[in-house]
Structure formats: C-alpha cells, structure tokens
C-alpha cells in the first residue's frame, strides 16, 4: 500500500506539482514571518513600542493562519477532485474504499512533507533577502542581527502540519464515504455549463444590492461607529463579490454568447464559450481571487498612506525643537538667547494662550487640557512662522479646533460638533491640523475663538505664553537641551514648563514596522491570489488539450487557438482585477476618511502595482497553459 502510494506519488509528480508549489508557498510565507519575529527585528524598537508591535504581530499571525487554512483547503480540494477519478480506477481492481482512502491519505502526506521541505528550504534561502527588503522599505535605522534558529522551523512545521493534517483526513473521509459511481464520474461534471437565466437574474439583483450597500457603508461618514461599519462593509462586499461572479457576470457572458453577431467574430466563439462553460465551476475562485486582490491592494495603500502619514507626523512634531510654557512674556528673549548660543534658530514663535479649567468645558470627548487661542494672535503666529492661515474671521458662537495629525481615526464625521466653554455653546466650524503649536497639539486641545470671546473667557482660566523654537542642527539637541534645562531650573518661579522634541527619537518606529508589515501582507495576498488563479488555469488547460487536438486536426492553426487562450486568460485575470479596482476605490476611500486625507494617488499607484504583478502572473500562466494544452 505504502509502495503503491509512493509509486503514484513519483509518477504523478507533474500533476502534484501545482499542489506542492502552492503548499510550499504557504510554508514559505509562514516561515518567513516566524523568522522575522524570532530574528529580533522587532526588539530593537524598544520597550516603548512593544505593546503595539505585539498587537500587530498577533493580528498578522491570525490573518496568516486563516489564510493558510483557506489556501490549503482550496488546493487540497482541487487536488482531491482530480485525483478522485484516477484513483477511483482502483475500484475496478477490487480495492475497497478504505484502501483507496488510505492510498490518497498517504499520497497527500508524501506531498505535504515534500512541500514542507521545499517551503522551508526556499524559505531559508529567501529569508535573509526578505528581511533585508522589509527593513529597507521601513528604513529602520538600526542594525539587525540575523539569528538563524530552529524555533521558526518548528513553529512553522507545527502550524502547517496541523492544518494540513485536517485536510488530508478530510480527503480520506470523503473517499471512504463516496460511492463507486461518484468516484469514477468525479471528473465528468459536465452538467454545469449554462445556468438558468431567472436564477442568474435574481443572483445579479441580490449581488448588486449587497455590493452596493457594502460600498455605501465603506464610505459612509460616521461619528464613532466606523469600526462596525467597516466590518459590515467587509462582510457585504465579500458576499456581494461572490454573488456578482455567481450571477451578473455569467448573465452578461451568456447574453453575449446568445448574440451570434457578437460571438461569431475573431476567436470569441472559442473563449467566450470556454469561459461560460467553466463559470459555474470557477466562479468561487474568481470571487476569492478578487477579494484577495482587494485585500492586497488595500494593504499596499495602507502601507503607502502610513508611510506618508508617518513622515508628516514626524514633520509635525518637529515643527519646533523646544517649547516653553510660562506666565512671563519676557522669558522669550532670554530663552532665545540661551538656545541661540551656538545654534541657528530657524523657526520661532510666541503666542498667548488661555488654559481653561476642564470643569468649565463640555465636549463630546472629555479631556483634561483645554486651551483657547485668539484668532488675531494665531494669525500673527502664522505670519511669523510662515504657515498658512485658512481660518476666516469667526463669529461670537463659532470655534475652530486645532488638532494633531492622527494615524487613523474612527471618527469620520466631524460635522455638527458643539463645544461648551464657560457657559456658552460654540459650534465647531472647522477642524484643522496645521502645526501652529507643534508638539503641544499632541497633548492639548486647542480651540480658536475670536478676540472678544477670548477676552471674555479670560476669567475662566490662566493666561500663559507659549514660546517655541526650532534649531537648525539636530546634532546639537542634547547639548542645547541640557543648557536650556539649567536655565529653566534657575528661573526659580516653578511655573515654567519645558517641552523638548528629540528630532532623532524612535518613538514612532512602530509605525514603520506597521507599514512594512502591510507591504508584507500585500506580497502575501498578491502572490496567493496569483497562484490560486495560476493553479486553476493550469488545471483547466489540461482539459483543453483534447479540444485543441481536434481543432488542429480540423485545420485551425495554432495562432488562432493561442489567441483564444490569450483572450481567455486575460479575461480570467481581468475580471477579478476589474472588480478589485472598483472595490478598491471604496476600501481605500474608507481608509482615506479615517486618515482625513486624499488617497486617490495612493489608490492608483497601488492598483497599478497589483496590475504589474498580475501581468507577470498572466505571462507565466500563458506559458504553462499553452504547454498543457499542447499548443
């Protein structure tokens, strides 16, 4: 028995190849990720970021294991249907179902081991490269020591083995339970082909509605419920895409095939029919690939957007190097002299502000530090520092919030917010994030009111002066800070606060990790969707061989058949790509709303990146399919 399985494995190797490759691929991905965790690449981020990083790692591990689960499920399922009819022949040789099941089980175990071995081997080969790429992308300024160890190997083998075993056993049970007839006719599933128009129509309508509401939820603005919306949108879009490929797209193709003037042109008669013929069998694959592509493009866009946001946050925080809060207006000149000793002060500003006691303030999101600025003072500051000033003169009951840059925010709707201060309710007319107050904006809530209101509110708080400076050479930071600290300590009033922002701090490095991890996810998803599509087409092309031979006999030249195949593959890749492209507009749109920025450019670039990779997959598939079809 074991020998038979081994012989089968050896001779059927070519057929197993697609399974082995795809399994090896999942192993490679998992191994690389485990390796990254164990390599200590994350530890350099220091303890401050540990929480975030651990959260990210857990999240990704979860996604990867889910992904692996489905991927193995899919590839073993494809494999089982194909093996069923071949292995089913043994029924005629008098083998019992149990024996055949065992045979299949052993074959899959051989295959699985072989894939594990290959995956680990290539994983080890590629891991160094992989980490280098990731770290280059994230440009962490720290040296990484590669610590090759056995732990990632064991963890990977363990997870993979457990998942794989489930499906090997599932295949065994399936074979043991299937009837003889079911086994040998497993391949003769010609009964799909054309589907009834009524059903397709219902499915199309349902799909359009579901997908539409998913899109709507994704882009809807919301005050706090964005997370729930996003989850619902994900579920709806997933279901909608399945219905789309199960309904509208076959409907369109069938209608097109019914129009003979359209169909009998160029090679359409071949590839359109071919697509319809396989649609019912393949639509789940198309849908899955679309969704994986959507994940990948969203991951990439997130990465680009994060990268952009990271840069602007750093710029934002480093608007000033030193900031002093003091009741003494004259401190400005003295501090400037201290800081300016041996430094260029490139940006400098001073503004009075009103620290309001939180008990006088009532907002939707209570905080402990509220600070009021007057419109004219802020305008003067903007002029001094050369920042833009887009705030129109304010009415008595109007207020503008000056906030910091969020990485992301779940509050996507900022209209209709009111703020009550000192017994008066203001309506918030704008929320802008220009770094007038630099790093202070991270920790305090700044509001702008008109000058009269500012004067009125004086009685509710204490007026301080914020003096801010940026030095030209970040290399002088330490030395200057110490000097400034000595100066502040010598003031002996005890009311002056000092904020220093180290331009070379790595406090935000976890964001870098985040966006490199997003790129990693992008690669995983795009490779996965490509390889699923590839496997599908690779297998389908075997069926094409007989048909091609007949047509060659009838005198159709290879060029025609190749053209038809090209068109078919292009549509097979093009459909999920198109669905992804349209959906990405909404998923990236949702992201843009959470980040309060315009990501259209990022969206286009990400879609183009996916397109580039898909074109490569297409070329690869075309080669393989032409070979399999004997063209």
């Amino acid at each position, binding site marked *: 028995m074991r020998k038979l399985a081994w012989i089968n494995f050896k001779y059927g190797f070519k057929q197993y190849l697609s399974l082995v490759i795809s399994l090896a691929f999942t192993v490679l991905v998992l191994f690389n990720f485990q390796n990254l965790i164990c390599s200590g690449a994350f530890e350099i981020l220091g303890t401050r970021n540990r929480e975030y990083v651990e959260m990210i790692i857990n999240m990704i591990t979860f996604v990867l294991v889910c992904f692996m689960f489905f991927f193995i499920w899919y590839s073993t399922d494809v494999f089982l249907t194909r093996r069923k009819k071949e292995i089913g022949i043994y029924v005629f040789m008098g083998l019992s179902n149990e024996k055949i099941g065992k045979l299949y089980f052993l074959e899959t175990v051989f295959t699985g081991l072989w894939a594990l071995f290959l995956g680990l081997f290539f994983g080890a080969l590629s891991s160094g490269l992989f980490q280098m790429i990731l770290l280059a992308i994230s440009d962490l300024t720290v040296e990484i020591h590669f610590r090759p160890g056995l732990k990632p190997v064991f963890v990977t083998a363990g997870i993979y083995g457990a998942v794989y075993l489930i499906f090997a056993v599932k295949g065994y049970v399936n074979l043991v339970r299937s009837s003889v007839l079911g086994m040998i006719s497993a391949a003769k599933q010609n009964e799909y082909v054309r589907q009834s128009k009524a059903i397709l129509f219902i499915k199309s309508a349902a799909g359009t509605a579901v997908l539409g509401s998913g899109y709507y939820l994704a882009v809807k603005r919301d005050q706090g419920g964005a997370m729930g919306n996003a989850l619902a949108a994900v579920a709806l879009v997933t279901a909608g895409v399945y219905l789309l490929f199960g309904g509208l797209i076959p409907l369109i193709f069938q209608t097109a095939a019914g129009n003979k003037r359209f169909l009998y042109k160029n090679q359409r008669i071949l590839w359109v029919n071919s697509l319809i013929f396989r649609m019912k069998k393949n639509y789940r694959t198309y849908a899955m690939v679309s969704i994986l592509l959507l994940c990948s493009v969203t991951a990439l866009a997130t990465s680009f957007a994060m990268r952009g946001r990271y840069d602007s946050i750093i710029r934002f925080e480093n608007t000033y190097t030193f900031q002093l809060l003091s009741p003494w207006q004259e401190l400005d000149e003295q501090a400037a002299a201290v800081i300016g000793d041996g430094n260029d002060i490139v940006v400098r500003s001073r503004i009075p502000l009103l620290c309001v006691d939180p008990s006088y303030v009532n907002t939707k999101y209570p905080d402990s530090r509220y600070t009021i600025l007057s419109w004219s003072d802020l305008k003067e500051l903007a002029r001094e520092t050369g920042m833009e000033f887009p705030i129109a003169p304010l009415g008595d009951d109007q207020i503008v919030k000056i906030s910091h840059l969020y990485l992301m925010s779940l509050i996507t709707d900022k209209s209709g917010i009111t703020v009550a201060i000192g017994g008066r309710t203001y309506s918030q007319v704008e929320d802008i994030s220009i770094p007038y107050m630099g790093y202070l904006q991270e920790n305090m809530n700044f509001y702008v009111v008109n000058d009269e209101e500012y004067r009125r509110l004086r009685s509710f708080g204490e007026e301080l002066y914020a003096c801010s400076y940026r030095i030209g050479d970040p290399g002088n930071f330490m030395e200057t800070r110490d000097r400034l600290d000595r100066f502040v300590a010598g003031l002996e009033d005890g009311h002056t606060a000092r904020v220093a922002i180290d331009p070379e701090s790595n406090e935000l490095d976890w964001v870098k990790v985040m966006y490199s991890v997003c790129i990693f996810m992008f690669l995983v998803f795009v490779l996965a969707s490509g390889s699923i599509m590839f496997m599908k087409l690779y297998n389908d092309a075997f069926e094409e061989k007989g048909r091609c031979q*007949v047509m060659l006999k009838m005198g159709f030249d290879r060029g025609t058949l190749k053209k038809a195949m090209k068109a078919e593959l292009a549509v097979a890749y093009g459909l999920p790509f198109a669905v992804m492209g349209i959906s990405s507009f909404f998923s990236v749109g949702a992201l843009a709303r959470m980040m309060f920025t315009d990501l259209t450019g990022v969206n286009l670039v990400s879609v183009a990146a996916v397109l580039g990779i898909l074109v490569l997959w297409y070329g690869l598939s075309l080669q393989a399919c032409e070979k399999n079809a004997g063209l």
Partner: protein
Amino acid sequence: MNHVEEKNNMTTAPAQRVHVAVVKNLIKTYGGKGFQTRVLKGIDLDICRNDFIAVMGPSGSGKTTLLNILSTIDKPTQGTVILDGQDITRVSNRELSRLRRDKIGFVFQDYNLLDTMTLQDNIALPLSLSGVSGKECVEKVRKLASLLGIEEHLKKYPYQLSGGQRQRGATCRALVTEPEIIFADEPTGALDSKSGRELLECFKMVNDRGQATILMVTHDPFCASYAKDVYILSDGKILCRLSRGGDRKEFYDRIIDVQTSMGGDFLCQ
C-alpha cells in the same frame, strides 16, 4: 493475390469528372530501422467530385492510416497524394493547415464536438474562425441543420444530445464550409444501428444533392453499401472495387458475396 476489378459504367460520364484527389503508389511504413511494418503497400486511388466512396477493410488493415494521409494529418512514406491540385508531400505545414480548414471536412468516429459550446456554435465554429460574418454563419448553420434534421437541437450542448444527433451535428460542421471533400472515419462506429442508418441516409442525401464528395472508411458492409463505390482494403492493398448499380440491398448482398469469397482473414474482424 486475387485482384478483382469490376467495370464501372453506371456512374457519370467521364468528361464531367473533376478530380478532387489523386493517390499514386501510396506506401506507408511505421517504425524505425530493423523493426518496420509496412501498413500501406502501394495504393492507387482517384476521387472525383461528387463521389461517395467507402473504403472497407478489417480492423488493422490500414484504413485509418490511409484516411489520415489523405486528409494530410499524416505523411506518406512514399508515393504522391494530390489534393485540390496540390501535392501534399511538397507543401508546408502551414499550407496543410489551410488546406484542411478550407478544403476538407472531418467526421470522426467519436464525434469530437467541443463540449464547451452549443451545437449551433460547434457547427458555426469553422465558418466563424475563417472570418465569415455572424449573420451569414447563423443562416448557413440553420439551413444545414434543418436539412439534417437537427434544427431543434441547435441550442443544446453536446452532452444533452444522443450519439446520432451529435454525429449529424458533426456532419453539419464538416459540411458547413462547403469543403471539396469529406473524410469520415467509421462514422457509425459509436452509434446504434438506427442512428447509424439515419446518419448514412444523411450522407447519401447530401451526396445525391451534389453537396458533398465523401470518402468514408468502415469495416461494416452495411455501412459501405450506402456508398456509390466500395474499395476493399486488405493487408495494405486495395483488393477490388465494387460499384453500386441501383438498389442498395442488392449492392449490400454483392459486398457480402465478395467478402465471403475472399474468406479467411476478412471474417475475423
């Protein structure tokens, strides 16, 4: 070797006869050095426009081999085959493809309809791929299909059709390009006798209407009796030629007689 030749004076006058294919001294050997089998040992054959020829012989006598060579799928070892005025041994593969597509129609034993498309599309396939307009395709397909009695099945897929319907569909596909000649290899081989008869009636009808020149190979005398001329192939050679006078039944009896008179190896198929 008993080479029987019957004089043929019942067919159309020689002056009107246009050659479609001329085969001279055709020899085909399989295998390499030291291990050669000669399958065809010098075949001479003339096929003229509107002929309906059956090549009959026992299994393994080289019928398929002959047909494959005539239809340019295979190459002869020796001898000349002139098809539509061109010597197929001297023509490039590309030309041969073109020749097959434009001048030859095929009816295979196992139908070979494409299961990915409806019968209508299957029949329209050769026309559509050679650039005929959609409207014209639809028109031609409909005409032929109604002639062969499968019009109501056009929207169905091959798997929804019986063997006989499929084979008539395949015949339609072969006829639709109006080829110079149709080659049929055991066209009734996979059919029950009733469907087989219907198919042969179709062959006979299109031939009688002057729409097709047919060369059919078969091992079945009943099948062969539908043809105008029957060549008996045995051991790589054409042993004799029989021509139908009038009645098909009488012709069938004659074929059986000749078959019996040749005895031995012929009966064991």
